[in-house]
């Protein structure tokens, strides 16, 4: 079982790799677009990398609901449960 903190840390690694986001800036309250400056194309990369890292499926019509890091953590937590 992966904890929320572990998922957040995993997302931080991905965000650093694909979008150059500093891991220190990543927190559950942060918005991908408004706070972390992740544009729509980079968000696609984040999603694909997250699917691989956490062994989950994140359908395209679900991605628009993932506004914050916390939203993504919750989705991944639920999907991998």
């Amino acid at each position, binding site marked *: 079982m992966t904890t929320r903190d572990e998922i957040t840390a995993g997302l931080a690694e991905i965000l650093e790799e694909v979008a150059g986001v500093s891991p220190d800036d990543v927190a559950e309250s942060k918005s991908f677009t408004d706070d972390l400056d992740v544009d729509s*194309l*980079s968000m696609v990369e984040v999603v694909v990398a997250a699917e691989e890292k956490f062994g989950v499926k994140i359908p395209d019509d679900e991605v628009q609901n993932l506004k914050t890091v916390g939203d993504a953590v919750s989705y991944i937590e639920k999907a991998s449960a």
Partner: protein
Amino acid sequence: MSRREVVVTGLGATTPLGGDVASTWEAMVAGRSGVIALTQDWAQQLPVRIAAAMKVDPGTVLDRVKLRRLDRSEAAALIAAHQAWADAGLADAGVDGERLAVVVGSGIGGATTLLNQDDILEASGPRKVSPHTIPMLMPNGPAAWVGLELGAKAGVHAPTSACATGAEAVAWALDILRSGRANVAVAGGTEAVIHPLPLAGFAAMRAMSTRNDDPEAASRPFDKGRDGFVLGEGSGAMVLETEEHARARGARIYARLAGAAMTSDGYDIVQPDPQGHGIVRAINAALRDADVSASDIAHVNAHATSTAVGDIAEIAALRHARVTNAVVTSTKSMTGHLLGAAGAVESIAAILSVYHGIVPPTINLDDPDDALDLDVAALKARHLEVPAALNDSFGFGGHNAVLVFTKA
């Protein structure tokens, strides 16, 4: 109303000779070759195992995350354009974006992105294909990136005419500035396709040198021993301004872009017209446009790619157009053939020849072709006043672009 004059105020380049204009020019004048052996595993099965790679890899210049979304040709164009922009003193000058245009072309575009992503598609399926693929491979990508980063809003254009692209971009920018659609334009060309498929394709045309055992001697325009061109990569960009705009801000002026012309052969998809009619018409038209007589051209930076037919056809065309007092050179002897960037990088060399009074050498010209009856700067740079210089560029498809630069 008198015509709006156009001048060159900034230069930028990343080439097989250096990561900027200063290092490229220094190597050119010194007569150094940028051609190297391709030692990568993928090259070993190819008939051509030499190329002129960029001396400074864009990966060491641009930010890693930014490079994820740039084709190598886009990265090179951004590097050259930012250099030209800074060189012109425009980085903090508050240029009105609605009066700034960009014309940057590529001969082949994002072919390496296309091929690399196809490898990913084959190996891992469509979901692993990068979402940046399309903006990386689209041929207007380099122009669009340059326009985006410099804030150009008067129009961003990407002409493509194979190996005439870089010169054609400069010619279109001249039109834009003369017509009053912008006050400032960044013009240039870019190319980065050192990859097995383009190499195999050009080799299959029997267009390339196979002097694999002696890379530095492989590009030898006008020499009896020439056996084809050497593929190079890089980018050249220049800032062009109306003279009025440049004078008003006290800009340093390298040269005047006095005239340009473009013609098409209507002869063959890849073979040059052996009579060179299209080239002669382009030279004549460019001279008329510049109001310079053929006998006043002191220097020609030739297209001469080191192929058997092309080099001598160009010499014959220059003679036919009565450009016979010029010291001719082919800087491709050192840079290799930069395809869509060639006309831009070679225009920069011609501009610096006007500015510094130095013509870089044609290296490897040990045994001149018997048909070579013009004065070529063989082996060593020449020091001479260059009041007017001409740059020739020709491309597969029958494109001819000729530019005339004069002392400002």
